[in-house]
Structures are given as structure tokens and as C-alpha cells.
């Protein structure tokens, strides 16, 4: 076993990553119906981020993802207003409320937000459904970033179509490699505008190395999914990955800094 790098040493010591760029590209605010999430309140989430050394968090409201995008997006904007240098909202777009599409796009335009989150939780509409078109058109015009919740082929294949049809949209595949890894490899091979995001409660052995190998170290972004799960666990997956510290730094924050610039 080679000598551990500085970042792995930090993980062993539990030291905040001072002096490093650490950006969480996938987190949330609010509560969830399906299970108890203790300490989902803002003060705990902020403390968790600070303990690790996260300087910026890109997050969406769970309320919005479940159904009420109007309420949830307002919550996310309020969180941003309170923590303007730390928290940056994804605007959630829900295709099963097509009557709200204009409202959602107008909110992004007014607030000058260019990052969006989509999740088929509760509606099961495929990501290439025509009801997503207002979002894809807008993100394509503005060069926006869309973080898509993915659990393998079911979600990645439609996002590959979106990447093809809307080449100026930057697509971030959430939970990359969680299942059916090969489809993620195909997605990044075929589409330069697709990126991989790391968070997964399944800490699959060697997955971070495989994501870096399939996409290159510049197209893999660190995410925590907190408060659904522990950011400490997610950080460990990167800090202990068998890749160079230089590549870990890209994954932990440098790539997100560039993508969200």
C-alpha cells in the first residue's frame, strides 16, 4: 500500500479541509416523509458543512422535489438569502404541474439562477417527456446546469437524449454509478455536456476510481445528498479513493467551481 496522501491523512484525522476548494454539488433542505431525518434544520446542516470544510453547497428543497415546487423553491431562496455565500439553490422543475412551468422559469429568470434539479419522485414521468421541454429550452438558451436524480438506465438514457438535443445544457447525473455503471460510462463517452456526481449511500468499493476512469477527473463532482445521509461518509469515499490528491481536489471542488461559474 502506497503512502497515504495529504487528503487521506485529513480523513483519518477528521480534519476540516482547510485551504482546499470543497463544493457540495448535491444536497437538500427540508424534511422528508418516508423516514426520520434527524437534524435536517439549517443550523445542523451548516455545522456539518463547516466540520468538513465545505465552502459552497448547491441544494434543492425536498418539498419541491416531492411535489410543491412553488413552496419548496421559495424555501430554497429563503435559505440562500440567509446564507448567501454558502447555499446556492437549484430551482426544482416539476413536469406533472405543467401549468406552473412558466412560473418556475420566470422565478429562475428573476432570481438569475441557472441551475435546476429534476427528480421523478412521485410522478414517474421520464426525463424526455415533452412536459420538461420548457425547462430544457430555457437551460439551453442560458447555458444552465441540470442536476438529474438518476438510478441507472431508467434515468440516464432519457438524459442522454436531452444532452443530444440541447447541447448547451450541462447535465449532472446525480448518484452516478449507483446501479448499472456501464450506462454512465456510455453517457460520458457520447456526450461532452454530461458530468457525473458522486453521492450514494452505497459506498461501493472502487466506484470513485471507476467514475474518474470513465469520465476523466475533470467531469466528476462531489456531492453529499445531506441531510438524507451523512456528508462524512460521502467525503470518505473520495478521500480514501485510490486516485491522486490532484484528482481528488478536482472532484471535491475545482470541477464544481468551473461548472457553476
Amino acid at each position, binding site marked *: 500500500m502506497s503512502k*497515504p496522501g495529504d487528503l487521506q491523512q485529513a480523513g483519518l484525522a477528521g480534519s476540516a479541509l482547510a485551504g482546499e476548494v470543497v463544493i457540495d454539488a448535491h444536497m437538500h433542505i427540508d424534511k422528508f416523509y418516508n423516514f426520520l431525518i*434527524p437534524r435536517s434544520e439549517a443550523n*445542523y446542516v451548516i455545522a*456539518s458543512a463547516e466540520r468538513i470544510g465545505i465552502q459552497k453547497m448547491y441544494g434543492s428543497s425536498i418539498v419541491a422535489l416531492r411535489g410543491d415546487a412553488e413552496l419548496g423553491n421559495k424555501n430554497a431562496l429563503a435559505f440562500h438569502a440567509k446564507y448567501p455565500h454558502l447555499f446556492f439553490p437549484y430551482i426544482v422543475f416539476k413536469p406533472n404541474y405543467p401549468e406552473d412551468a412558466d412560473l418556475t422559469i420566470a422565478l429562475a429568470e428573476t432570481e438569475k439562477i441557472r441551475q435546476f434539479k429534476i427528480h421523478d419522485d412521485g410522478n414517474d414521468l421520464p426525463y424526455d417527456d415533452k412536459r420538461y421541454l420548457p425547462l430544457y429550452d430555457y437551460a439551453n438558451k442560458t447555458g444552465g446546469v441540470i442536476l438529474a436524480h438518476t438510478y441507472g438506465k431508467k434515468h440516464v438514457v432519457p438524459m442522454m437524449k436531452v444532452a443530444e438535443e440541447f447541447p448547451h445544457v450541462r447535465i449532472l447525473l446525480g448518484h452516478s454509478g449507483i446501479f448499472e455503471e456501464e450506462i454512465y460510462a456510455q453517457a460520458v463517452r457520447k456526450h461532452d455536456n454530461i458530468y457525473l456526481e458522486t453521492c450514494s449511500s452505497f459506498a*461501493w*468499493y472502487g466506484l470513485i476510481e471507476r467514475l474518474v476512469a470513465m469520465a476523466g477527473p475533470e467531469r466528476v463532482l462531489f456531492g453529499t445528498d445531506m441531510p438524507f445521509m451523512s456528508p*462524512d461518509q460521502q*467525503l*470518505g469515499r473520495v478521500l480514501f479513493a485510490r486516485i491522486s490528491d490532484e484528482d481528488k481536489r478536482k472532484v471535491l471542488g475545482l470541477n464544481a467551481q468551473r461548472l457553476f461559474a
Partner: protein
Amino acid sequence: MDLSFFDCNCMIGKRADRREGEPWSLESLLAQMDACGISEALVTHALSRDHDPAAGNQEISRLVAGSRVLHGCWAILPPSSREIPAPDAFLREMLAKDVVAAIAYPHSHNFSLSGWSVGPLLSALEHFRIPLAVPFGEADWEEIERLCGEHTSLPVIVTGLNYRQLRFLLPLWERYRNLFVDLSWFSIHDGLAYLAERGVLRQVLFGTNYPLYEPGAAVTMVTYANLQDEERRMVAGGTLREIIRGIRRNQP
């Protein structure tokens, strides 16, 4: 701070459900433990789960014999099927071979955890205070509740429990101090500090689920946790060592 991690949940040997690239050898486990600062581990052999429990039990004992850092964990079956020795002989052999934990796969191995099936064996484990691991999914919550309630001095470790189970677990923890879980998939946001506040931190053990999972992910759940140093040591290995010290090796 040296946390002296003691992993309660890892496996070696060739597994039926191996994902490409996962290591399986004893040497790989030792190298991984070294990289992650893990001092000791309870180890099950894949043969015990995926082929023949009796053969796997013997194989893990052969592989870890004489090791100071690796401790064998044996799979149990209903004594009536006569695939493993009768409870007295089984326990004598476990203790003679320094096996400090047992594991049950009732779902995968098609048996019941009820008293009519493995009651005498569970009572023997309980008598000697040898902990019993039950991987999450191998028994349902009703079975876990009965197991803890009928054998209150048997340390029961539910391994591989996911982070979504607190609404089941917290009511059980109000009743049973002999119910433990491991950290490998128990990735609750700020979870260890929350469980410390709830007074149940002693019932969480460090576990990695190696080689399915990255051990480093479990390590950082402890090193970055918002805990006092003493609490951190307890989760890392203190409680598991206390359980193992509690084994009544010289009891008749």
C-alpha cells in the same frame, strides 16, 4: 488521536455477488485495514454465506489462526439439520478456536430464528455472551424484536442496516440494550451526535461491510462525527471490545 478501529462487519473469500474489482483475499483485507487505520476485525468467510456454513467456518478459523488482529465469525444453522455440531459441541469448538462472534443468515439459508428452530443454540450463545450478527434483510423487525426479547443477554448486532430505519430502531432501542447496529450503511446525517443525545450511542459499532463497501467511508463517519473523543473511541472499537471481553470463556 488513535481510535483503534475494530471492524465488526467484513468478509473474505470469493462471493457469489462480487462486483468486478472487489478484493477478496486475506492479504487485501489486511492492506485495506492498514490504509484505513483499522486495528482489528471480525471476519466471516464467503463460504459460510454462499456455499456451506460448516466449511466456511472451518476455513475462516484456518485463515485467521494465530492472528492478533483478525477474529473469526461463524455462521449458525438449526442444530436439527445436523450440518453443524450440537450447541454444546459447537460452542466448545468456537471457544477453543477463539471465535468471538456468530452470524445468522436465516433468509439466505432458509431457516427460522424462532425458539423451535435455533432456541437452544441461541441460548448457548447467550450463556457465553457471544455476540450474534444478523445482516439487515436476513430477518425482519418482528424477528429481531423476538430475538432481543427472548435472549436479553445475547448481544445482537444488526449489520448493514440502512440510514432509513430509525422509526423501527428507536422504539426497539427503548426496550433493548442488547441490540446493536453497525455503521457501514447507517449513514445518518449528524447521526452519531444525534444518537449520543438520545443515549444510545453505545449501541452503534464501527463496521465497514468490506469488500462490498469502501472502509474509508465508515472511517470518516467516525473521525468527522460531532462527538467527544471518548464517545468517538467507544464507536470506533471500545464497545465491541467490551462485548468481546464479556464473553464467558471459562463457564461450564
